[in-house]
């Protein structure tokens, strides 16, 4: 690829100075952004690990939960299970606050008003032990799901931010900084060339004047 210059730059000393300033700023910014990206990725990895463990637990739990639910349905009939399920008390609501990690806003879940009771929500008659199991399982599943949702919300925001930062780093690294460097070189060469021309011209004039005096 040929080196591209910034557009509309005249080879003057003023421009050279301003480009030098821009270049040092761009390099500083590049460094900072790179650090930001690295620390975000580090953080991202730890969250991902947590999330993957949770998903694995959850998969096992779901298997058990569905098994006991299906057994309960077999014993009591689907309709009866559904009726009892509909009567279980509403678990409550969630609140969200914002957490800030290196300028990234991450939704943080507040599940204090979300209560999951321990006792069965139905009477002893007309139900079976499997239904108890299944309710317990699904309640545990729910608790895990809340944790998972909290993590995944964070992962999403982090991923978006990482991509943004990556793009910025890349633009600086592959576009702006090379352009600035090329322009700086171009101006320096132009100025040197002009100096050489000047020097030669002066020499020539001197020689001419000397020959005239003689």
């Amino acid at each position, binding site marked *: 690829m040929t080196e591209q210059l910034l557009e509309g730059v005249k080879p003057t000393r003023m421009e050279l100075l301003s480009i030098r300033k821009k270049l040092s700023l761009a390099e500083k910014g590049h460094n900072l952004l790179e650090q930001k990206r690295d620390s975000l*990725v580090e953080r991202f990895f730890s969250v991902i690990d947590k999330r993957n463990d949770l998903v694995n637990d959850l998969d096992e739990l*779901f298997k058990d939960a569905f098994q006991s639910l299906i057994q309960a349905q077999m014993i009591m009939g689907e309709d009866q299970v559904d009726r009892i399920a509909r009567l*279980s008390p509403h678990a409550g609501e969630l609140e*969200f606050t914002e957490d800030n990690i290196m300028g990234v806003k991450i*939704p943080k879940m507040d599940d204090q008003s979300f209560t999951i*009771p321990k006792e069965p929500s139905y009477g002893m008659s007309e139900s079976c032990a499997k239904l108890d199991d299944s309710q317990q399982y699904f309640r545990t599943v729910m608790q895990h799901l809340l944790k998972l949702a909290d993590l995944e919300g964070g992962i*999403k925001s982090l991923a978006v931010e990482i991509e943004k930062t990556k793009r910025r780093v890349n633009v600086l690294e592959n576009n702006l900084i090379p352009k600035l460097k090329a322009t700086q070189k171009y101006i320096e060469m132009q100025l040197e060339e002009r100096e050489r021309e000047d020097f030669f011209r002066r020499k020539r004039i001197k020689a001419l004047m000397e020959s005239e005096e003689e």
Partner: protein
Amino acid sequence: MNVIALCDKDTASGLRLAGIQTVYVPTKEKTALQQWHEIEDHIGSTGLIIITEEIAEEIGKELKEFRLRNIIPIVIEIPDKHGRKTDHVDYISHLIKKAVGMEIKR
């Protein structure tokens, strides 16, 4: 904010047992997509949407756009009674792959 779910009938029973009472179940008359639009109408009061992988795949395009637009509600995908689908790539894994540049094994 509320927790709601969009899932099949059996998962619905299970989640109701755990206290999630706002559950949308797609039927023949009302497809998953229609249900989804109904959910979209009141996202202001919703904090968490639980959705089975089966349905998530069915409304994939809408779901993706929705997730790009909104941070809250958070959407999470759960397996249904047949277990995790092997060929389904969930959104978070997809995000991870995009952000890190490679897949991270579970």
